C-alpha cells in the first residue's frame, strides 16, 4: 500500500491530494496468468471430452480402468475409465470415455470388441497386444441413431472399417466344418470369408453369410454357384487315385468356393445380399439347374436290401433324381409288407428331351394336374419303375424307370399325392423267380423211378452183353475163318499159271478169231451186198473170198 504524506511548505497554494484507496500492483498479473493457464487447461480438457459410453462384456479379461485404450485403425479414440460388474453380476460393464472426434462412434450399430492375442486354425491375430496389453477395438456404424450402451463382441468382427465388398446369404442343410472366418475361394484364391451363420427361422437349415471383398465381388454373378470345399476329396477313378483340396486352411477350418458354369450367357454381377444355395461339391453345384422337383412314390413287393436314401433314380439310363425315403408299409388287403420308396425327380435334368416335350405337348411346368396327367399317359404306355442292382459287389440298388409296353396294365390314380409309379420286380429278382420255377420243376421229376428203371435197364444190358460174349462171338470167329478161306481160293484162282487162266486165254483167242471172220464177212457184204439176197455166186474166184489184208 502506498500512502502519500502531504508536504507542508510555504507555497501559495495547496493542491488537494487524492489518495487512491486501492492501488493494484503489476505483480497480480502473475497469479492471473497462472489462473488463466489453469482455466485454459480445464477448458481444453472439457472441450476434448467426448461422449461417455458403457460397454458390456462377458468378462473383464484385459480391461483395466484408466489404462485400456479404445482404438480405431490403431488410433486411440478413448480409454476405459471404469470397469465394474453389472448389477446382476452376469457381465462386466466398462465405462469408456471417448475423445471429442470419436463422437460418431456412438452410432447405434458401432461395434466394440477386445483385441487380444488369438491363435486359431484360421490364423494368428493380435500378437502386438502380447506386449502392449489388450485394447478395445472399435468399428464405426452407419446408423443415424445414437446409443450410450453397447454390447461388446466376444470375437473381432471379420469385416471392419467399412471394407468394400458384398455380402451374400447361402442356404445349406448343415454348417459342416465351416465357421466364422472360413475362407471363400474363387479359382482357389481366397477372396472373402464367412462372417456369420444362423439357423433358419424354422430350424430346418442354416443360413451362412459370406463377405466377398472388392474388387473380386464382381465375379459373383447371377449364375454363380457356391459349394463346400471343406476337407479332402479323395476319389478313385479309372484314371487312378485323385486327392483334391482347396488349400491347407480349408482342409482344417473349411471353406467355400464359388464359380459360374462355363457357359453362362447374360451374366451380370449379383446384387448385394442375394440368396444362394450351398452345394456339397463342385460337380453338383455346376450341374444344370434342377428345376422343379417332382415327388413320386413307388411300392415294391420285394425286399430292397441295398437301396439307400440318395440312391440315384434313372430314366432310360439318365440320372434325374434320387431316393429320399425307404419305408416299410403294411398292406391291409394282402396282409403283406410292401416297401414304399419316395423319390424326387427333376425332369429338367433330362435336358433337351424335357424342353422339346414341353413345347410339343404345350405343357405348362407349373400346372401340377397336367403334369400328373402326363405321367398317367406315360404309365399307360408302360412306364414302370424297377429296383436294379447297380453294383453286383456291394449290392447297391438304384431305381430305374423305363417303358415296358408288355407290362400288365395298372390302374393309375391321378389324385394320389405324391404320384404313385407302378413297379416291376427287379431284373435280378426276375432271374431268381425263373430259376426258382426251374428248380421246382426239377423237384417234381420222378427221379427215383427213373433211377430204378435205369438200373433195371443196365442189368438187362449186362445180361445181353454176356450172351453176346458167349454165343455170338464164336460164330463170328468161324465166319471170319470161312471168309479167309474163300479169299485164299479166290487168290489161287487168279494166279499166273492156273488152268482157269489158260482157258481164259484160249477163250480170248477164239473170240479174237471170231471177230476177224466177222469183219471179213462184213467186208464181203460191203462189196457184194446182193449176196444177201442171191447168195454167193458160184463162179466167184476163190481169191475173192480171201480176207482183206488190213
Amino acid at each position: 500500500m502506498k500512502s502519500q504524506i502531504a508536504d507542508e511548505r510555504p507555497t501559495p497554494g495547496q493542491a488537494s491530494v487524492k489518495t487512491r484507496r486501492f492501488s493494484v500492483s503489476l505483480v497480480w498479473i502473475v497469479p492471473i496468468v497462472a489462473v488463466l493457464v489453469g482455466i485454459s487447461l480445464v477448458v481444453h480438457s472439457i472441450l476434448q471430452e467426448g461422449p461417455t459410453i458403457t460397454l458390456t462384456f462377458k468378462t473383464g479379461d484385459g480391461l483395466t480402468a484408466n489404462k485400456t485404450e479404445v482404438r480405431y485403425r490403431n488410433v486411440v479414440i478413448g480409454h476405459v475409465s471404469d470397469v465394474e460388474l453389472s448389477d446382476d453380476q452376469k457381465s462386466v460393464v466398462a465405462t469408456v470415455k471417448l475423445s471429442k472426434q470419436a463422437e460418431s462412434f456412438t452410432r447405434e450399430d458401432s461395434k466394440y470388441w477386445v483385441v487380444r492375442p488369438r491363435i486359431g486354425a484360421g490364423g494368428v491375430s493380435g500378437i502386438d497386444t502380447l506386449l502392449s496389453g489388450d485394447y478395445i477395438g472399435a468399428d464405426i456404424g452407419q446408423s443415424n441413431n445414437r446409443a450410450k450402451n453397447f454390447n461388446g463382441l466376444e470375437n473381432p468382427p471379420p469385416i471392419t472399417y467399412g471394407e468394400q465388398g458384398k455380402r451374400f446369404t447361402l442356404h445349406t442343410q448343415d454348417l459342416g466344418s465351416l465357421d466364422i472366418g472360413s475362407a471363400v475361394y474363387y479359382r482357389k484364391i481366397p477372396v472373402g470369408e464367412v462372417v456369420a451363420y444362423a439357423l433358419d427361422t424354422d430350424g430346418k437349415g442354416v443360413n451362412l453369410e459370406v463377405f466377398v471383398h472388392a474388387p473380386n465381388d464382381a465375379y459373383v454373378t447371377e449364375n454363380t454357384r457356391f459349394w463346400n470345399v471343406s476337407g479332402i476329396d479323395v476319389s478313385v477313378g479309372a484314371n487312378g487315385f485323385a486327392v483334391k483340396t482347396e488349400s491347407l486352411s480349408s482342409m482344417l477350418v473349411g471353406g467355400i468356393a464359388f464359380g459360374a458354369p462355363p457357359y453362362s450367357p447374360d451374366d451380370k454381377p449379383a446384387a448385394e445380399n442375394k440368396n444362394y444355395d450351398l452345394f456339397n461339391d463342385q460337380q453338383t453345384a455346376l450341374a444344370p439347374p434342377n428345376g422343379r422337383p417332382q415327388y413320386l412314390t413307388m411300392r415294391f413287393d420285394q425286399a430292397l436290401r441295398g437301396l439307400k436314401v440318395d440312391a440315384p433314380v434313372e430314366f432310360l439310363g439318365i440320372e434325374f433324381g434320387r431316393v429320399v425315403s425307404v419305408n416299410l408299409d403294411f398292406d391291409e388287403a394282402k396282409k403283406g409288407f410292401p416297401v414304399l420308396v419316395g423319390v424326387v425327380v427333376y425332369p429338367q435334368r433330362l435336358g433337351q428331351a424335357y424342353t422339346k416335350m414341353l413345347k410339343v405337348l404345350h405343357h405348362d411346368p407349373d400346372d401340377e394336374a397336367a403334369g400328373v396327367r402326363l405321367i398317367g399317359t406315360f404309365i399307360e404306355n408302360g412306364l414302370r419303375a424297377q429296383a436294379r442292382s447297380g453294383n453286383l459287389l456291394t449290392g447297391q440298388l438304384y431305381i430305374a424307370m423305363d417303358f415296358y409296353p408288355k407290362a400288365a396294365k395298372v390302374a393309375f390314380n391321378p389324385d394320389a399325392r405324391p404320384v404313385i409309379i407302378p413297379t416291376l420286380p427287379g431284373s435280378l429278382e426276375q432271374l431268381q423267380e425263373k430259376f426258382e420255377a426251374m428248380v421246382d420243376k426239377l423237384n417234381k421229376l420222378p427221379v427215383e423211378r427213373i433211377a430204378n428203371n435205369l438200373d433195371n435197364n443196365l442189368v438187362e444190358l449186362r445180361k445181353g452183353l454176356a450172351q453176346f460174349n458167349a454165343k455170338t462171338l464164336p460164330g463170328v470167329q468161324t465166319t471170319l475163318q470161312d471168309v479167309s478161306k474163300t479169299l485164299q481160293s479166290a487168290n489161287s484162282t487168279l494166279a499166273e499159271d492156273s488152268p482157269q487162266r489158260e482157258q481164259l486165254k484160249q477163250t480170248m483167242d477164239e473170240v479174237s478169231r471170231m471177230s476177224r471172220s466177222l469183219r471179213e464177212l462184213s467186208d464181203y457184204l460191203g462189196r457184194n451186198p446182193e449176196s444177201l439176197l442171191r447168195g454167193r455166186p458160184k463162179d466167184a474166184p476163190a481169191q475173192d473170198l480171201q480176207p482183206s489184208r488190213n
Partner: protein
Amino acid sequence: MITNDRLIICEHCDCVYEKVTLAKHQKTLCTRCGGVLQRYNGLTVQQRLALSFTAAVLWLFANFYPVMSISLQGLKNSATLWDSVLALSQGPITFIALVAAISIIIAPVFQLLLLIWVFSFALGGHRSPGFKLCMRWLETLRPWSMLEVCLLGAMVAVFKLAGLLDVLPGIGLFALAALSLLLIRIAGRDVRDLWDVLEPAQNPSTEEVMDEVPNR
C-alpha cells in the same frame, strides 16, 4: 518490550544486534560467526499475496495433473502426486505414505493457506485474526514442506527412466518446479517482517500477550 523489537539475534550464535534498514542488494552479517542476519526483501505485501495466489494455483496444477507419464511398447501409465501417495499407501510402508502426503501435499497447502490469510489482512494494514497462531504455524510447517525434495526425486526418476522407457514430464512436474521455487521465496523467514510491519491491534488481549511470551 518495545526496545526488544528493534533487536535481532543471530540464529547461529545467538549474538544480539540492532536492526538496520537495508537498501537494495544489501544484507547484514553476524560479526561473530558470519551468518546472514538480514537480507533486503524487495517484495511488498501485495506482491507476496499475489505470489501466494500464484503458488496456490500451481499447487492445484501439481496435484491434479500428472507429474509424468511413461509408456513402453504401447503400455502407458501416468501418475499425479496424489497417485504416488496412494501407491505408497497400498504397499507395505503405509507410514511412509503418510510422511510423503504431509511433506509434499499437506504442509505446502497449509503454508499457502496461512500465507494468503495473513497477507490478505496485512494488505489492509492490520493483523489477521489468530495472527500469532498463524505465524507460529508458518514457522513450524517450514521444515515439513519438502516440495523441492519431491521435485528432485521426480527429476531423478525422469532422467533414470528415460533410457528404459518413453518418459513424458507432465504439466504437474512443471507446476511442481515453479511451486517449490515460489515457496522458497514467499514462505521463507522474511515472513517475520510482518511482526514489525503490522502493529498489534489497539487493545490486544492479555491472553494473546501471554500466549506469545512462552513461545519467544
